[in-house]
């Protein structure tokens, strides 16, 4: 059972809302927002433990959003979503403090494993 609240930040509204529904069906407390600015603004109110964050959004670069999240609360674990062909951008995100990264289109099993691992890390902290 995932204890952390999950926030999805992705400008693709259909993607974010559908993923959110799938996480809720698995018993998670999940919320989706659709811009980097909205995501950062929602942190105090939503108090997420895990954030699933798109790397490329029109208003803000995912790496910049990641930095803001870590400034706000370093204990929040961020899983970056990337549509890039190589794992380079995902690795860069990990260097900047992301817990893990996943390639789009998502493999839900892999994402669930990453969420579980992030939740375990938070539980032990």
């Amino acid at each position: 059972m995932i204890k952390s609240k999950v926030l999805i930040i992705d400008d693709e509204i259909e993607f974010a809302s559908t993923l959110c529904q799938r996480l809720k069906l698995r018993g998670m407390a999940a919320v989706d927002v659709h811009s980097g600015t909205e995501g950062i603004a929602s942190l105090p109110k939503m108090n997420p433990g895990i954030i699933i964050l798109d790397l490329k959004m029109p208003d803000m670069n995912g790496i910049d959003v990641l930095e803001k999240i870590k400034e706000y609360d370093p204990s929040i674990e961020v899983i970056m979503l990337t549509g890039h062909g190589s794992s380079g951008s995902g690795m860069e995100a990990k260097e900047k403090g992301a817990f893990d990264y996943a390639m789009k289109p998502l493999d839900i099993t892999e994402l669930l494993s990453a969420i579980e691992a992030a939740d375990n890390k938070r539980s032990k902290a």
Partner: protein
Amino acid sequence: MDINMENSIRQEQIESFGRLMAGFAHDMKNHLGIIRESNGLMGDILGMGALGEDATLVARLEKSIASIERRVVISANILHHLSGLAHRPDTPCSSFQINDLLEEEYAFLERFSRLKQVAVGWELGEGLPALYNDPALLQHIIYRIYSQCLELLGNGHTLTLLTAQEGKNTLIAFRFPKTSQVDEEIFGNDILRAAIAKIGGKLEILENSSDIVDIRLILSSLDVDNTLQP
């Protein structure tokens, strides 16, 4: 027009195509992401017993959902390779694994062999050292040689792609059964030869007694200092 200017225009054109393709691949992955999540959600709801006890209907829907999932994975894999291919011209020279480069390009070459009903075999060398060279130009050369090989082959033939290390050099070979005398000109037009020369490569045609032809592209890493010069 000055030849250097013409080359610069062509170089920029290739870079523009690369960026356009990379953007296209990125957008398509987003669409596939939505399709995959929506399909997954249908599967989740179906798994919760939303359709009741109609086992036939459930089975039919499960089959469709699995089919969509399978096709999304195949499409995502092609787009993954397209992204890689499109980003190759980003830097004129870089370090890469020859097997990765071949597999990436093969995602697109496969179609041509399939249409000619030519089977493709693989004999990739293991643990090959990274090559420092011009990957975009090399992919262009591979495409040209591959296409020429297919011209000589037909239904039921097999084209085998091999990679190996030969001393300090890396070998890419295209092996196929000898169907007729291989004309060196087919693989050696001036533009292709110039492209091969530009990446410091060499092309050899070996016709073995066992009726096997090997088109051998021999490569080595370029000198880093030379490639940095304008």
